[in-house]
C-alpha cells in the first residue's frame, strides 16, 4: 500500500510478497475490504506507538510542541508521512478508522495545549490551530518535495508561534 496505494493491494500481489497462497489470505481476511482495514488498523497501531514515544520525549512549551510534531513528521522512518495521509484518507469511508483518526488528532491537540498552557490568553483552541498548520505543511511538502520534511515542519511551526506571539520556552 505504501509503495503503490491501497487500490493496488490485492490478495494476489500480497500473496506473492509474503510467499503464501492467495487462497490462504482469502480464508484469513475474506474480502479485500477486510484486508485493507486490517492493514490500516496496523498502520494506526504503529502511528499510535510512534505518537506515544514522541509525547514522552517532547518537552514543554513551543519548543516541545515543535519537537513532538517533527518526530511525527516521518524523518525517522521513510514512509511514515505517506502512512499518515493514506490512513487519514481511508478514514473517509470507514467509521472505525475515521474514529481512530479523530482520537489521534484529539490526543495530539490535547498534548499541544498542555505544552502551551502558559501562552498569552490561554491555550484553548491552540491545539487545533497548530495541528491544522502542521498537517497543511505536510500536505504542501508532499506536492513540492523540496528540502527535508523535518526542516520544513520546524520552520513553519516556529514561524506560527512567532506570529501568534507564543514563546518557544
Amino acid at each position: 500500500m505504501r509503495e503503490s496505494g491501497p487500490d493496488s493491494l490485492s490478495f494476489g500481489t500480497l500473496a506473492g510478497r509474503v510467499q503464501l497462497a492467495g487462497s490462504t489470505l482469502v480464508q484469513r481476511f475474506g474480502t479485500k475490504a477486510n484486508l485493507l482495514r486490517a492493514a490500516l488498523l496496523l498502520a494506526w497501531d504503529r502511528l499510535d506507538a510512534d505518537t506515544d514515544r514522541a509525547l514522552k520525549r517532547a518537552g514543554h512549551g513551543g519548543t516541545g510542541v515543535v519537537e513532538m510534531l517533527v518526530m511525527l513528521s516521518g524523518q525517522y522512518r521513510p514512509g511514515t508521512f505517506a502512512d499518515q495521509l493514506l490512513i487519514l484518507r481511508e478514514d473517509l469511508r470507514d467509521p472505525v478508522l475515521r474514529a481512530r483518526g479523530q482520537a489521534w488528532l484529539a490526543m495530539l491537540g490535547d498534548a499541544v495545549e498542555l505544552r502551551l498552557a502558559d501562552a498569552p490568553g490561554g491555550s484553548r483552541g491552540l491545539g487545533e490551530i497548530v495541528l491544522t498548520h502542521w498537517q497543511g505543511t505536510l500536505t504542501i511538502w508532499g506536492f513540492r518535495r523540496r528540502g527535508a520534511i523535518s526542516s520544513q515542519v520546524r520552520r513553519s511551526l516556529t514561524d506560527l508561534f512567532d506570529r501568534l506571539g507564543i514563546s518557544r520556552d
Partner: protein
Amino acid sequence: MTERVAGSQGRRSVEDARATRARLLDLAGDLFAERGYLQTSIRDLANHAGVTSGAIYGHFRNKAELLAEAINARTAALLEADTMGLPRNSDYVETLTRQGTRAPKRRRLRALIVQGASAAQTDEETRTRLREEQRAHIDEWVAGFERDRERLGLDPALDIEAAVLFVWAAELGLGVLESVGIEPRTVKSWADVQNRFARSWQLPPDRKRATPKK
C-alpha cells in the same frame, strides 16, 4: 449564407464542448471529494454524466488531469475571485479575514486537494499534475503581493513566498482535519487567526514612519 451557417454551427459546437467540459469538471470535483479520488473511476464519472468514457477522454488526457483541472477551476472560483489575486485597491488584511469567514464554502475544494495529495503519494502522474497546478496559483499569489508590497505596507523583510505558503498550509491543514470529521471550533475563530497572520506581515507602526520614501 452556407459559410455563415457553418460558422454559427462551429461556434455552437465549441460552446457545447466548453459546456460539457465544465459540467464534467464540476461533476468530477463533486465525486472525487465525496467518494474519494481513487475510488471514483472514469467509468463512474461517465455513468453519472450520461456520456461514454471515450467522450471524457476526448476532453481530458487522464484522471490526474481531470483532478488537477477540477481543483484549478474551484480555486479560481472560490479563492481568486474572492481574492488571493488581490485587486489593486483591496485591503489584504480584510480580504484574508473575509476568506477566513468564508472557509466553510471552500470545504469541497479542500477535500479535493486532500484527495489529490493522498493519491500523489503513490502516483507520479497525479503528483506532477498537482505540483504544476499548485505552483501556478502560488506563483500568481506571490506575484500579486510582491507587486503591491509597498502599497500594502508589508514588512520589506517579509519572505512573501513563505507567507503565502503559510496561509495556504492553514487552508490545506483544515482540509485534512475535516476529512476525519474535525471542524474548526467556530468560523469566527478561524477568521481571527487569519486576521492575526495577515497583520503580522505588516511593518510595525513605528517602523512605518521611519521608512524613507523612495
